[in-house]
């Protein structure tokens, strides 16, 4: 009489099978991290907005231009990328209330109280011939300047670095130190060619 027990399944090939599955996953999947520089594009301007744009005070704008030879100009001066960060920081903080640097305004932010904010806007312009890597490099410097200002602000307010704050406070700091970069309309750039 045959035994009623079902024979045990031989498990020794399990390792091989799972190896095959492992190798399959290694081949068809990617692990590249999704990282980069986040930006919000401005919505297409309506006619009214176009008229309004021209009213912005000259002193509140710093023009950062990159020409087709990847040369950088900030506020109509040629500049090295390494110096851009400090220039932007000076522009956004205006420590000595220089009349040529942007005005400040005091705004009430819920949860923070009145905060002195800069009205400065960084206008980033590029040529069609600018290389992408230079453009990202300049974007990166601007973000770095803003991030350092945020760090300063959060050190002053909360005594902690921005990255160590919880997300509600980070939102507040972001509101107090906005990243006001405008990426210019391309047609303006063409004119300057």
């Amino acid at each position, binding site marked *: 009489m045959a035994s009623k027990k079902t024979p045990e399944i031989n498990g020794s090939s399990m*390792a091989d099978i799972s190896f095959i599955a492992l190798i399959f996953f290694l081949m068809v999947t990617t692990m590249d991290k*999704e*990282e980069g520089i*986040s930006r*919000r*594009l401005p919505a297409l301007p309506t006619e009214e907005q176009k008229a309004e744009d021209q009213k912005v005070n000259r002193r509140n704008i710093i023009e950062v231009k990159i020409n087709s030879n990847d040369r950088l100009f900030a506020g109509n001066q040629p500049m090295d990328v390494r110096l851009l960060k400090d220039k932007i920081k000076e522009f956004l903080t205006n420590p000595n209330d220089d009349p040529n640097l942007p005005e400040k305004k005091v705004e009430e932010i819920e949860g923070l109280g009145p905060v002195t904010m800069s009205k400065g806007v960084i206008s980033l312009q590029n040529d069609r011939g600018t290389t*992408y890597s230079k453009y990202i490099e300049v974007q990166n410097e601007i973000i770095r300047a803003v991030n350092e200002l945020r760090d300063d602000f959060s050190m002053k307010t909360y005594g902690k670095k921005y990255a160590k704050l919880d997300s509600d406070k980070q939102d507040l700091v972001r509101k107090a130190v906005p990243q006001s970069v405008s990426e210019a309309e391309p047609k303006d750039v063409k004119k300057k060619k």
Partner: protein
Amino acid sequence: MAKFIKKESGDIPAIGTASLPDIVFMILMFFMVSTSMRQTERKVKVVLPQATEIAKLERKDLSSYIYVGTPTNQYVAQYGTESRIQLNDSFRNTDDIRDFIAAERENLSEVDRPFMTVSIKADQDTRMGIITDIKQELRRCSALKIMYGARKGK
């Protein structure tokens, strides 16, 4: 003295492989969780520019990708060496972005649509002209959240 009988001389005992399947399964699980399926075949060469102040994309499933770069070797004969745009699996023009965005938007649930991010993965040697065209087109279809792909460096 039975206690001190020498073990069979010299032979190294075989390593037990009973736990091997478990170990491999563990690695398998790790890869299944931490990786994502490759969705498109890259037809353009993309070396992302380097940046230090990069942020992580929060919701991978809400992002659409636009690749910009020179065609890879096998497509050079057909498409030349100029920078091209790749949407999904094919070379496209800026005019096709509108349809692409519309289709991608359609794929998302209504709640998620405002959070759709367009990730622009462009080669570092690309000229800005083509990027500017893409940006303008994206503004026209009001896909305003974008991300310039970059890798950590310097």
